[in-house]
């Protein structure tokens, strides 16, 4: 583990900056929502440390005051099932992370994954430090945003309807970049069409599970077709 240099910090901050902005804005939205439901900034902070998943936390707001605990847990499992893929696909990259592994996996949210799964950072930057800092910046921004939101919620009144769209917009920019970077568009098309079909067939609550099963099945069957354009090589 090398000492963290200014260069590592600058590179990680450059990568994280769009996520920091998004997380601050989204976190403020979440904090305000929590505050309106009677849970102040300390609750948002606590929830952010323990759950650390924007989607699960937004859903949790309506479940905190009443309702089945089991249902809340199952909902969180369903929403976060995608993280199984994220963690598995990072095993190769994180294999030499040593004691940092625990934190890197615990804090591996969608956006951090999107940034750290595409490359190992700019030339000359210590990869391990880069990963740690990107993950830390992203989480800190989310926690800071949620805390600020809880605080702002008591002072300001503005209509935050539609603020969740920042998440959709971010995923869309990553999707476009991946589309530009890859010759084989089959995985991208598969992700959209399989999920869309399952949303129509299975309804809004469980569609992610069948969608993932179909995606894995098709990826398995079409491996020979996809693999040559599957991306960068691993050691």
């Amino acid at each position: 583990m090398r000492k963290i240099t200014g260069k590592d910090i600058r590179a990680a901050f450059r990568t994280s900056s769009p996520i920091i902005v998004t997380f601050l804005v989204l976190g403020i939205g979440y904090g305000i929502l929590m505050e309106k439901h009677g849970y102040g900034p300390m609750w948002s902070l606590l929830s952010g440390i323990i759950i650390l998943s924007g989607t699960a936390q937004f859903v949790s707001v309506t479940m905190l005051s009443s309702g089945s605990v089991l249902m809340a847990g199952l909902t969180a499992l369903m929403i976060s099932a995608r993280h199984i893929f994220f963690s598995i696909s990072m095993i190769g990259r994180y294999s030499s992370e040593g004691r940092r592994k625990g934190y890197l996996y615990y804090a591996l949210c969608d956006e951090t994954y999107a940034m750290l799964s595409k490359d190992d950072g700019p030339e000359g930057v210590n990869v391990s430090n880069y990963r740690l800092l990107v993950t830390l910046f992203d989480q800190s921004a989310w926690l800071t945003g949620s805390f600020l939101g809880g605080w702002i919620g008591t002072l300001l009144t503005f209509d935050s309807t539609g603020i969740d769209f920042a998440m959709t917009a971010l995923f869309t920019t990553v999707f476009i970049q991946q589309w530009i970077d890859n010759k084989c568009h089959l995985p991208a098309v598969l992700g959209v069409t399989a999920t869309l079909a399952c949303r129509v067939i299975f309804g809004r609550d469980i569609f992610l599970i069948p969608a993932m099963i179909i995606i894995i099945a098709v990826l398995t069957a079409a491996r020979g077709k996809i693999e040559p354009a599957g991306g960068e090589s691993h050691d």
Partner: protein
Amino acid sequence: MTDHMHAMIVIAVMGLAVLATRIVPVLIFGRGEKVPEFILYLGRVVPYTAMGLLIVYCLRDMPVLDAPHGLPEIISLTVVTVTYLWKRNTILSVVAGTALYMFLVQSIF
């Protein structure tokens, strides 16, 4: 105080569920032994399916059959796409798209 207890339990249970999805796969496949070639293949290719899945997930409550038929989403995502192809700036596209979307759902539709 009792409902605060409930909130605490809900946060703890949801936290455990999320943590499990992030850690358990690593405990199964990350013990130092070689990860099967097939898992590595999935690791390479799943990221390219996951973004599409997440976008559809984000839009899961978009009304297609009822008004406004997803028009705010379509307009805003078009702006996100065009600005991103034009400037390749994530902040610009996310902020512009979100601001437009918030304006559309609050004032127009």
